């Protein structure tokens, strides 16, 4: 998956978890926290994205990402065969 595809997955899941974000024009620098997602919402969005990517990594590794763009880059780098 490309970073752009992963970004699209994250934002789609963000809209599912927090319906008022469905129509939001997401930027790479947007932070889920700043958009009003609490820690449970954020974990849910990450879990749904990992599942869609069929990626099995510890959720706690994703804590380093400060915004959606960084999260997409981090998950992209953890896919098998992808050089981070």
């Amino acid at each position, binding site marked *: 998956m490309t970073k752009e595809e992963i970004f699209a997955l994250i934002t789609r899941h963000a809209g599912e978890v927090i319906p008022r974000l469905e129509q939001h024009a997401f930027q790479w620098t947007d932070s889920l*926290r700043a958009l009003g997602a609490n820690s449970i919402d954020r974990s849910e969005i990450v879990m749904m994205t990992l599942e869609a990517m069929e990626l099995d990594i510890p959720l*706690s590794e994703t*804590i380093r990402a400060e915004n959606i763009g960084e999260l997409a880059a981090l998950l992209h780098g953890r896919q098998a065969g992808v050089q981070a």
Partner: protein
Amino acid sequence: MNVFAGTARVDVEKLAMHRGLDMTRFSNLLMKEKTVALPYEDPITFGVNAAKPLIDALSPEEKDRIEVVITCTESAFDFGKSMSTYFHNLLGLNRNCRLFELKNACYSGIAGLQTAINFILSDVSPGAKVLLVATDISRFMVEEGGEGLTEDWSFFEPSSGAGAVAALISEIPHVFQIDVGASGYYGYEVMDTCRPAPDKEAGDADLSLLSYLDCCEKAFLEYQKRVEGADLAGTFGYLAMHTPFGGMVKGAHRNIMRKIAKARPAEIEADFDRRVQPSLNYGQRVGNIMGASTLMAIASAIDHGDFSSSQRIGCFSYGSGCCSEFFSGVAGRDGQSKLRAQNIAAHLDRRYELTMQEYDELLVTNNTVKFGTRNVTLDPDFIPQARTTHGRPTLFLKEIKEFHREYDWVS
């Protein structure tokens, strides 16, 4: 086993409104009330009040066979002296007894339970019993002008409780029979939440949540490896998990049901209501009681579930830092009636409800019994209604004299 959850509570919805929290977000916590420790309550008063009915029900011969007292806590007030020594004295136990204390954040209660089980199983002293006391209190203090009221704090203030679970572990399981060897454990070093200074709780709520979710899955997978034929959806009539707040348990349940049991969202929701909710009822009214939380979830599941036929309970404990364990045991109709005889729900109802003003005063008053207090006499006229609210003798801290804690039975 028995639960003692203090003498005072606050309604967390009123607290959330009082703090101006976003109520739609707040409902995700799945919290109703929480116990608040009053200045004359400490981990000893909680623990003794929980254990007393169990000890009083023993014959002198049975009582003399208590050969180990294990305290499980992250709220100790001394680095060296173990709280087990106070329990031993206040409950009048036999001096031929091992006394010690265990710490591993919220995992302590289960670390203690497994230690006790192993002592019984080793059969080195046939007929002996272990008294397990898991007891923890939260210490919330408002720092003037600090950044206390962050989003994370807004989750943790309404959910941090105080309480104790006492249990007698012996070769005859009256309430809950542990499945021997059926344990999957999983731990690693992580800096999620901690108590780095005597009166401070610190941490990263996000990291703690993610670590809890990771551990829940890994510990169950290890359990499944060791227990032939174990199946998350089919083996357990109920699930009882460490409950920082109900919403976290709901998230963890959703995660493992989706990943391991491959269940669909509607099935997961129905499964949560049926198998998990009974274990949450007490936690929703007491708050997170750390080391005692998983044991209280087990008590809640047994009190609120349908045990007309025996049921296996899948249990998960997580302690920050971190260590976790998925294990199981069986409870039946007799165990349920034994536990119900403790009237835990009625005990929770009797706690005095603090007004927001009383609660806020308490956050400041809390400062009076700091860690390391050498001498103090507690004021019995502070919220006096709480002291007699249970209508039975209740132990309170009377004074600290040259670091030694002295207690009083009040009725």
